Every structure is written in structure tokens, then in C-alpha cells.
């Protein structure tokens, strides 16, 4: 049983998805999906433990030996990502039933959970697999279910957002497919480990350059790197609240994992950063993303739009971390993956609670909410502080590591720009705090009650995690650091 954990990680949600159809009753399906996700969470904890003690786990699917068959390969980076995805998915599912009762027609509830589990399967599959083509297949499983989930939003703009995401996402995935094909043409292998050994021999050919460019552009489309982010704000803003929470916390993280995997493992550090000018490119686009997206966030009227733009800005920080191409920078990147998942899921879940009570998410309807929904708005505020990077929250830890990495590298100017970028975050978070605490409720608006318990429990679990991992950084830093060292081939 233990030796089959890598494949069970993916199989459990995959098998659970069609079984949902048999249960029919929405409440039952919800509990069942929660059970499946919790099981996946348990498996990811076991996997992380196993990897931390005994190193890389390699699992041969169907018993076919590695370069020929599909290999599932779990190292510290994969295990870390698996833990983030399953943890967030499980916590979010607790609030799912309450939230979708208001937002999705009853007959579609079962379908919602099926799509959710399939999307989870896709993400877990992308992270677990060690086979380049398998990545494409899982990417499409998660993306196709994502398009359908976003289209479930009850605003007609959700349909349009979903369609745009479908076009952009498919172009991105097809680019990745072309890149994989070109790599296969040059090396005759699809296994990532095998590719990383064979690619250096043919590294100076135009085909490999082209393959690299196709893969990187495709992945960057998926992770919404500025200026390829256009699909993201509307997709997040008009999707059902639960879907927004889940995707904001996990979907871009998975794409960033792919970027790290391809640049560091498959193509190799020296090819990505020395032969090709990836460093300057990532640094420029990352910084531009931080400033453009944060400034755009300030002018939004829809609160979900504000935080969707802020997600694009956070991707900017993550990319700047990668562009340093040092162990320290990569540690900061991985930490920020974890921390950003924690804060964004808490914030978007709290916004979901607001939608549950108010039915709208415009900034003007937040007036006076601080008194009417104190626990929910306190969560938004603490999440916002974490986003800015205030000490005692997780946001501070990752920004701190990023600054150290930049200063180690001697990039003082970039470090200052990063701090300036955080100031922009202060502005957009303040706008929400001001509306909620310092404005009187609009005349004629109905008084609202605090969010139901099934919302408050997951929201505050995430908020407490935000503070806990901001104080006690041993676990997250240790895992992130050793995962980064693993990618650089430094033995810990």
C-alpha cells in the first residue's frame, strides 16, 4: 500500500469523480468529495514525510521500466506542491456546499463536485508525473474542468470569461505540446530525468531552442505572467466563489511548478539562464507585472477583481524569485507559493462569505460591513496585511527571503522596487478596509448577519495558518530550502 502512494495520490480523486454520479444527493456528494480530498491530503502528508526521510520516490506505472513506461517521480518539490494543493482543496471543500447553494442551481451541484475533483486530479497529476507528455494530458484534464467550472458562475460574463480562458489556455497547452514534440524529435525520450541527461548533448541546436521557447511561452500563458495574464481577472471575478478560491490558491501554483521543473530540471540551469537570456526576461516581466497589476488593482470596483489583479502581481514576485537563479531566490519563490496559497484562499473564501450574505461583491456594498460581519472582515484584513507583507504574517516571511536573495545577488535597485510594489498593495487593501470599517452603510441597505459557521471554520483555519507559519517558519522554510537545494543539485 505504502509503495503505491504516488499513484494513489492521483487515482483517489480520479475514481471519486465518477462515483459522485451514483450518490445523487448533493449533501452526500459533498461529504464524499470532502472524504476523497481529505484522503488525498493524508496521502500527500505521508509522501512528504517519506521524501524528507528517504529521498526521491520513483514509481513505475503498470510496472513498465522508467524511460519507456510512465514514471511518477516525487521529490521534495513535488511533495511540497502536492501538500499545498490537497490541503487547500480540503479546507475549501468544507465551505463548498453552503456557498454553492446560493450560487449554483440545485440540479448542477453533483456536476460541480465531479468537475472539482477532476480539476484536482489534473493538478495532482501534473505535479506527480515525471513524463513530459503525461504533463500535457493532466494539464488538459485540469484545464477543461476549469473552463466548465468557471462557466457555472451565475453572471453571464462568466461564460465570456470562460470562453476567453478556453482559447488562451488551449493555445498555451498546444504550445507546450509542440515543445514536447520538438524535444522528443531531438532526444527520442519523454521521461523528464532522461530528457535532462540527453538534452545537453544537443543543446546548441535550433530545434532545442525552439522547443524551449514554445514550452516557456505555453507555461507562462497558464501561469498568467504579465503580459499573458489577460484571461485571469475576469475568469476569477465571475466564477463561483468556491471555484475562485480553489484556482487562485492552486492553479497558477501548478503552472509555476511546471516552469521551475522545465527550466531547472529538464533544460537545466546553465541552458536556461546562461545560454538563453531568461534571467533578464523574467526579471523585467516580473517587475512589470508587479507594478502594472498592482496599479490596476487600485482602480477596480469589484472586490474579486482587486484580488485577481493582486494575484497577477504576486506571480510577479514569484517570477522575480526564479530570475535570481540562486538557492536563496528559489527558496523565496517556493515559500511564496505556499504563503500566497494560504493568504489568497483565506481572502477569497471570506469574499465568498460576503457573496453568500450580500449576493454582490462591489466595493460600494462593503460599506459598514466591518460591524455587520466582524469575523469575516477581520479575516479579509489579516489576509490583506499578509499580502502586503506585514511582520507576524506569512507574507512577511517570503518577502524577507526574497529581499535577502536580491541583496545577496547585489540587486539593490530590484529590492527597492519590490518594497515599492508592496506599498501599492497597501493602497488597494486599504480601500477595502476603509470601506468596511470607516464608511457608514449605504442608506436603504439591508442589515446582514455574520457568515455561517461552515464558512467561518475554514476561513479562520486558513487565517490561523497564515499567522502560525508567519511565526513558526521551521516547517515551511525547511521544506522549501531543501527542495530548492535539490533543484540545484546541492546535497542538503
Amino acid at each position, binding site marked *: 500500500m505504502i509503495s503505491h502512494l504516488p499513484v494513489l495520490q492521483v487515482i483517489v480523486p480520479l475514481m471519486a469523480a465518477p462515483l459522485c454520479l451514483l450518490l445523487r444527493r448533493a449533501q452526500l456528494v459533498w461529504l464524499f468529495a470532502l472524504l476523497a480530498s481529505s484522503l488525498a491530503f493524508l496521502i500527500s502528508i505521508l509522501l512528504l514525510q517519506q521524501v524528507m526521510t528517504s529521498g526521491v520516490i520513483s514509481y513505475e506505472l503498470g510496472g513498465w521500466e522508467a524511460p519507456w513506461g510512465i514514471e511518477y517521480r516525487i521529490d521534495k518539490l513535488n511533495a511540497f506542491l502536492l501538500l499545498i494543493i490537497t490541503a487547500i482543496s480540503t479546507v475549501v471543500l468544507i465551505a463548498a456546499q453552503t456557498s454553492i447553494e446560493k450560487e449554483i442551481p440545485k440540479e448542477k451541484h453533483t456536476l460541480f463536485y465531479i468537475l472539482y475533483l477532476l480539476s484536482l486530479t489534473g493538478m495532482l497529476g501534473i505535479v506527480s508525473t515525471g513524463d513530459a*507528455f503525461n504533463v*500535457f*494530458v493532466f494539464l*488538459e484534464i485540469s484545464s*477543461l474542468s476549469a*473552463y*466548465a467550472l468557471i*462557466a457555472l458562475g*451565475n*453572471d*453571464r*460574463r462568466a*461564460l*465570456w470569461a*470562460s*470562453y476567453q480562458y*478556453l*482559447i488562451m489556455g*488551449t*493555445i498555451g*497547452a*498546444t504550445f507546450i*505540446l*509542440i515543445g514536447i*514534440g520538438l524535444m*522528443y*524529435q531531438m532526444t527520442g525520450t519523454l521521461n523528464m530525468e532522461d530528457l535532462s541527461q540527453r538534452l545537453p548533448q544537443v543543446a546548441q541546436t535550433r530545434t532545442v531552442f525552439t522547443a524551449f521557447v514554445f514550452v516557456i511561452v505555453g507555461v507562462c500563458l497558464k501561469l498568467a505572467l504579465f503580459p499573458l495574464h489577460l484571461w485571469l481577472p475576469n475568469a476569477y471575478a465571475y466564477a463561483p466563489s468556491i471555484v475562485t478560491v480553489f484556482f487562485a490558491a492552486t492553479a497558477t501554483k501548478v503552472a509555476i511548478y511546471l516552469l521551475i521543473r522545465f527550466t531547472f530540471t529538464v533544460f537545466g540551469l546553465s541552458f536556461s539562464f546562461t545560454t538563453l537570456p531568461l534571467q533578464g526576461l523574467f526579471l523585467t516581466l516580473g517587475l512589470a507585472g508587479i507594478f502594472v497589476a498592482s496599479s490596476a488593482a487600485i482602480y477596480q*470596483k469589484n472586490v474579486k477583481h482587486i484580488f485577481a489583479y493582486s494575484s497577477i502581481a504576486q506571480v510577479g514576485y514569484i517570477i522575480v524569485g526564479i530570475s535570481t537563479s540562486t538557492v536563496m531566490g528559489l527558496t523565496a519563490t517556493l515559500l511564496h507559493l505556499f504563503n500566497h496559497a494560504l493568504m489568497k484562499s483565506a481572502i477569497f473564501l471570506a469574499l465568498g462569505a460576503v457573496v453568500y450574505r450580500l*449576493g*454582490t461583491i*462591489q466595493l*460600494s*456594498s462593503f460599506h459598514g460591513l466591518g460591524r455587520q460581519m466582524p469575523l469575516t472582515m477581520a479575516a479579509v484584513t489579516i489576509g490583506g496585511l499578509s499580502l502586503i507583507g506585514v511582520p507576524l504574517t506569512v507574507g512577511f516571511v517570503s518577502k524577507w527571503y526574497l529581499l535577502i536573495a536580491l541583496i545577496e545577488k547585489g540587486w539593490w535597485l530590484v529590492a527597492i522596487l519590490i518594497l515599492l510594489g508592496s506599498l501599492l498593495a497597501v493602497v488597494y487593501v486599504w480601500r477595502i478596509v476603509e470601506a468596511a470599517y470607516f464608511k457608514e452603510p449605504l442608506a436603504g441597505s439591508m442589515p446582514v448577519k455574520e457568515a455561517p459557521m461552515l464558512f467561518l471554520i475554514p476561513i479562520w483555519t486558513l487565517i490561523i495558518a497564515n499567522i502560525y507559519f508567519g511565526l513558526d517558519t521551521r516547517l515551511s522554510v525547511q521544506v522549501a530550502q531543501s527542495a530548492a537545494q535539490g533543484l540545484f543539485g546541492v546535497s542538503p
Partner: protein
Amino acid sequence: MIIGLFNDWVVVVLMMIGLYIVIAHGNLIKKLVGLSIFQTSVYIFYISMAKVEGGSAPILAESIKQFSNPLPHVLILTAIVVGIATTALGLALVVRIKEAYGSVEEEDIQHLDNQTQTESPKKVLEGDQA
């Protein structure tokens, strides 16, 4: 050069035609057609890459000495399935968009969206005709 890479030229031309349609056309159905052409060019790329000159299908028989590489062919079967799913989902979305907006032209939809944004923050339910 040109004749030796004939299949690659076909792939690139098809790819550019597909991408151009996706970018340049405002009609949502035409965009999906473009997307399909774009994906098809990649299928051809994989299939032609695996073809060995004079090789037959990979069957174990005494008369067959040389055969094409079956792996990319199998891979692309999966990609074709994915492509069908994408097109089907895209078309389904277009049907819903037509119901909700009354149009399948990008310009009209963006125009209607701008109107709802300036009018009122009230929720627009699906199926509404503007």
C-alpha cells in the same frame, strides 16, 4: 531544404493560418475553427515526425523489416481526444453565450458588457436578453 522539410512547411503554414484566425476573427465559432486548425497542425507535426521512409506499420511479421515509430502516433491519439473535448466544450460555451447575450460576435459581447458595467452593479442573471 524546402523539399526535404516539406512536412514542416505544411505544419507551419497551417499553424499560422489557425493562429491568425483565432486572433483576427471576432466570430466565436470562427475562432474555434481556427483553434482546431492550429491543433491539427500539431497532430500532423507529430505524425510526420514518426514516419520512417519505406517503413510500414509496426506489425511483427517476417516480411516487415522496417517500420515507423508508433509512439508519436499513439501520443497524438490522446491529443486528438483532448482536441475534440476542447472543441465540444468551446461550442457548448458558444451556445450558452448566444442564449445569454443574443450574439456570437466578440464586439457585440464586449459592448453589452461595458453597458452592464456602467449601468448598475446589479447582478445580471444568465438568460437575460439585454
